[in-house]
């Protein structure tokens, strides 16, 4: 198990938004985390990397407890978060953005070449300012910047948000390719269909707790998932 989370609680102020969540990600897997707005998915990711203090529970990376460690230490633990809304440095060039992603990596220039081979469009715009890239290119830059840290596990928060439909498909294809690089992925998404198509397993989160876990292909057929996330007919409970 690469990442193991148990009974994690976190929140803002006195408001708890994640109520004791347990999940795990095995090496080489793509694991989806689905849920509606406000379910606590992003807060959970932030707590895993240490951007949000965890109130209770445990977070283990390769068997070592990381809860309570500062966020910057996560990167050296090979756990990298690509936050929602890309968060690239708009006033820096593509090259500077990428180097920032590998600032702790002594081999960052070598890694830069590898990453640019993987994303040729970025190589062409190496000296352009990040803020002048298109939405799809910015998302690509955010992914490439994460790869600069040579992560074992990538946490992706809504990578398809704000992208044109064609670019969304490309983004998911790109995530699927992470498998070839040996990078494990925990993918938070609202695009349930696309996520379940590329993921191995997935969790469904609702109002701060996990309500389903299973193989992604099975969740595509789960009546609740279909109703809530795949646009099937309205909700009806059976009360006997």
């Amino acid at each position, binding site marked *: 198990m690469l990442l*193991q989370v148990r009974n994690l609680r976190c929140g803002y102020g006195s408001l708890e938004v994640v109520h004791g969540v*347990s999940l*795990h990600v095995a090496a080489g897997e793509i694991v989806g985390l689905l849920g509606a707005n406000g379910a606590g998915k992003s807060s959970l990711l932030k707590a895993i990397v240490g951007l949000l203090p965890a109130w209770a529970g445990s977070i283990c990376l390769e068997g070592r407890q990381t809860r309570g460690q500062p966020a910057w230490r996560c990167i050296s633990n090979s756990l990298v978060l690509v936050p929602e809304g890309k968060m690239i440095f708009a006033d820096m060039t593509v090259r500077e953005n990428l180097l920032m992603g590998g600032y702790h990596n002594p081999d960052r220039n070598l890694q830069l070449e590898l990453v640019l081979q993987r994303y040729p469009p970025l190589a062409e715009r190496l000296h352009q300012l990040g803020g002048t890239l298109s939405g799809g290119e910015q998302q690509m830059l955010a992914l490439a910047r994460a790869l600069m840290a040579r992560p074992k596990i990538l946490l992706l928060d809504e990578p398809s948000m704000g992208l044109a439909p064609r670019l969304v498909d490309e983004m998911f294809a790109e995530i699927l390719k992470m498998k070839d690089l040996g990078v494990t992925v925990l993918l938070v998404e609202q695009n349930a269909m696309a996520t379940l198509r590329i993921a191995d397993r997935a969790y469904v989160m609702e109002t701060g*707790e996990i309500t389903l*876990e*299973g193989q992604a292909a099975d969740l595509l057929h*789960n009546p*609740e998932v279909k109703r809530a996330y795949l646009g099937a007919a309205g909700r009806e409970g059976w009360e*006997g």
Partner: protein
Amino acid sequence: MNIFDRRYETMPRPELEQLQLERLQALLARLRRNVRRYRESLADLRVESLDDLARLPFTTPETLADAFPYGLFAFPLREIIRLHSAVGPEGRPMVIGHTRNDLTQWSRLAARQLAAAGMTANDVIQISLGRAATAAASGYLLGAELIEASVIAEDPLHLDYQLAMLQNYRPTVLITTPTHAVDFARCLEQRRIDPQSLHLRSVLLSRNVNPQIREQVASGLFASVRCTFGLGEILDPGLCVECEAGQFHINEDQFLPEICDGELIITTLAREALPLLRYRTRLAAGLRREKCSCGRTGALVEPGHRLDRQFRFREITFYEAQIAHVLAQTPAAGHRFEVQLTETQLTIAIEISQDLFANTLTSAENPRRQIELELLARLGLEAEVRFVEPKR
């Protein structure tokens, strides 16, 4: 060694326990949301480790029977695509529902057992379980289709026809009940047919039997014999896998077992239509978590005797209460009786009284025959009725 689902069947213990905890927490969230009875009994109870399981309420067979037909279902009937019935406490009916995913999962779990018994896509499988086990037959069928074996989708009722099928279709695997296997071995012997002339390689029995019967079937049909162990309300087949070492491994990624006062308790971790929390199986059992030479990590279960006066005769399960119910419609109404059961004989010993023969002018044969026919018609039981002197 054939392990169908290596990831889950051989999952290291710490990983398995993490998965079980995750699934248990998700199960509680779903039960609270989707099943009224559980919402009331669970209230705010939460679990932070598998040890907390002991704080959660049990589900009894009586609760399941009280909820008849669909009261414990977690989904509306529209989402349920398969319904099976099971015999509940004292013969009360219970309905077991399955969603599409439940059936998919069932096929995988049944396939685990078939693969462990050495079956592959090269086998021709005959499933012959009779009327009493149509639900189990459908489970084996799902599993056999998943491993892409050729399945003979016919269940011959008569031994002659069965024999003809074994000779003509040349199945290599026979999935059947112990009763039928023994009958069939006896039939071959009586007709002096060499079991080696059949192509049977292995026989999978639908329930656990003692070593003598295993040996009898193995030599009588000249095939290796494996058993399954399942429970109708939980999953049968699919609860366990009998491995190469002859041990029953619970499929612990799907079912969380406990033993309370000697009774086997099962929590279904991933079932969609009818999730059961700490279901009391009314079966005595032993549970061990230790290494097995087959490599599977699921807990080892040793099934024991029933704790609820449930009987089985020639694969038909029944309760004493059901016999009483049938007797109530005959001249023996209100009489004390005793169920006497051996492997080959079911006797209902009824305490005799004058009322029993009140309206009969001829011999004692009449009420006896009447009761026997009634038992056969209503419960499918071929029982012998004996009248005995009242005990003082």
